[in-house]
């Protein structure tokens, strides 16, 4: 960061936002911030003020992704909806049986994928939709950093699917229920979070290998890669657990533990350009930790019942948006 002595607290640089209900996701569009709420609404916020709110889903929002132009949400009404900074939400897809859409992902080139029941739908940038019927419910979804290939976390492993081919997906097998999935920015590693309070990783390529990352007291449901792709931060413990992915990955190496407190980490988000990690806890506290020296800054003090449920850095890494389970939210603007 800078050479000046960092302030102990960044609290005075936080602008609060009242979202009123559980914040499922926060997301930066080019024009401002959008917040996806559990009651189906999307809030739009710019320059310190709420602009308006629109109903994106009749029921609740369960998952969200997006790019600079739109927030894309999946809901318990079985719909996939895109919401821009202006205008009404636009329906992208609707499940005829109104089954939940609770996983969704978007690639940098605009490929979209979501789940309904035991199937995955992949929609390429031209709008062509392909469906994969999976043997077990698809949970986490993520596209490969390059190419049209999707990782699907399921029962007993992770499937890697090329939606544009007829080939059967490659199945990375590991017994247990796999929940969320992350793909390293260099494409070499796939990591899933598991029901058994662990992460499981696969090294892809010529010399494939397994990586077991265990010892969490809770399920590590939030994963974030550092901008250089060399570190993977995870929630699920009393501090953020950060695994080294240099060389052959974390097998046999100890992880870093950052921001250890008497609370459970619920969300982690790496800064897009520096080895700085935002850590949100179930007691409402937010810390920012510099990985190089472990120094900590307080962003938000603990607040009962206000566990952190969402994080998003803006593209430039100047602002951090957060949301909480009680409907509190806010934006931290880093002092320059």
């Amino acid at each position, binding site marked *: 960061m800078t050479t000046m002595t960092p302030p102990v607290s960044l609290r005075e640089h936080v602008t609060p936002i009242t979202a009123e209900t*559980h914040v499922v996701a926060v997301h930066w569009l080019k024009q401002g911030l959008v917040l996806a709420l559990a009651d189906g609404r999307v809030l739009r916020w710019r320059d310190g003020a709420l602009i308006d709110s629109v109903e994106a889903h009749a*029921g609740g929002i369960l998952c969200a992704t997006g790019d600079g132009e739109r927030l894309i949400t999946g809901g318990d009404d079985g719909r996939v909806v895109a919401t821009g900074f202006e205008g009404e939400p636009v329906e992208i897809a609707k499940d005829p049986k109104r*089954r939940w859409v609770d996983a969704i992902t978007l690639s940098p080139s605009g490929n979209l994928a979501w789940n309904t*029941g035991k199937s995955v739908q992949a929609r390429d940038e031209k709008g062509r939709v392909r469906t994969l019927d999976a043997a077990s419910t698809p949970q986490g979804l993520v596209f490969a950093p390059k190419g049209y290939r999707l990782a699907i976390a399921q*029962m007993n492993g992770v499937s890697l699917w090329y939606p544009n081919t007829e080939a059967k997906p490659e199945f990375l097998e590991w017994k247990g229920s796999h929940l969320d999935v992350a793909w390293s920015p260099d494409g070499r590693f796939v990591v899933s979070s*598991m029901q*058994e309070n662990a992460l499981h990783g696969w090294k892809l390529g010529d010399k494939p290998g397994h990586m077991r990352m265990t010892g969490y007291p*809770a399920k590590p449901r939030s994963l974030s890669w550092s901008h250089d792709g060399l570190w993977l931060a995870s929630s699920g413990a009393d501090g953020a657990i950060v695994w080294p992915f240099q060389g052959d990955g974390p097998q046999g190496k100890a992880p870093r533990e950052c921001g250890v407190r008497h609370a459970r980490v619920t969300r982690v988000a790496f800064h897009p350009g520096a080895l700085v990690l935002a850590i949100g806890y179930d007691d409402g506290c937010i810390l920012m930790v510099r990985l190089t020296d472990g120094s900590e800054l307080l962003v938000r003090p603990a607040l009962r019942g206000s566990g952190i449920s969402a994080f998003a850095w803006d593209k430039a890494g100047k602002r951090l948006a957060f949301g909480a389970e009680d409907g509190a939210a806010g934006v931290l603007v880093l002092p320059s």
Partner: protein
Amino acid sequence: MSEKIPVTVLTGYLGAGKTTLLNRILTEDHGKKFAVIVNEFGEAGIDGDLIVGADEEIFEMNNGCICCTVRGDLIRILDGLMKRKGKFDAIIVETTGLADPAPVAQTFFVDQDVGDATRLDAVVTVTDAKWLKDRLKDAPEAKNQIAFADVIVLNKTDLVTAEELADVEAAIRAINPYAKLHKAERANVDIAALLDRKAFDLDRILDIEPDFLEAGHHHHHAEDVRSISLTIPGDVDPEKFMPWINDLTQIQGPNILRSKGILAFKNEPRRFVFQGVHMILDGDLQRDWKDGETRESRLVFIGRNLNENELRKGFEACAA
């Protein structure tokens, strides 16, 4: 933390009247809002605020315990519902007619996130007075559902004679004499008798006397699923009892559907209570033994192919 949301599991064999009962719970004017997790979404014709379709996706936990199966879809759905806290007061999980209630129940004890946000209130089983006896012969699922129940609704009593009714009641009692039993026509049972039972709450395990009715009590020792009650008229030694009950449930867990106990531990003024589902045991020291209350130790097992003599010998060896 806010109060945990109670969850009622509604089971019953095909055609017993589960959907009728569910609709009664949802439409009756009781001022409560429910989230309902159903298995045949869109086909059952259920009215209500928050209805979620489920897939009954069962998986085995990676903890080396073969009967420790849980419902993965339920963990996912409850996680989603918890984001909408305040929109409902209670959750009802309806299972398919052929479902084993154990994975549903175990989900609440095995998954920490689920256990932190919700509590299993009771397993309610709807049975059919006319056809149950046939089902007990040809459908092991029907038997499991009775054995597992905390509350049994004996439905369609208007379709049978008084003798037939007494007979079917006796057949139920042979399997599970401890559940609360309510007779009903067209599922017209008092909703209050089904909800907020706290059947898995250790503080509510006050006695484990059978819920016998005035009707004659037949013995059906031929049943492979039945209950066994064991008593030691005094204290047990926890140093002996704890390893015994742990080993027993580890080895015989697949056959033991439910277990409960109230025990007097040597030199311990408080009662030790526990309840279990297959291998999963939950136990704690509860209130003091009262003056005038007989310090005795009692266990109840409901299960399949249980060896009563072996269980009795094992338990009696734990006497202090």
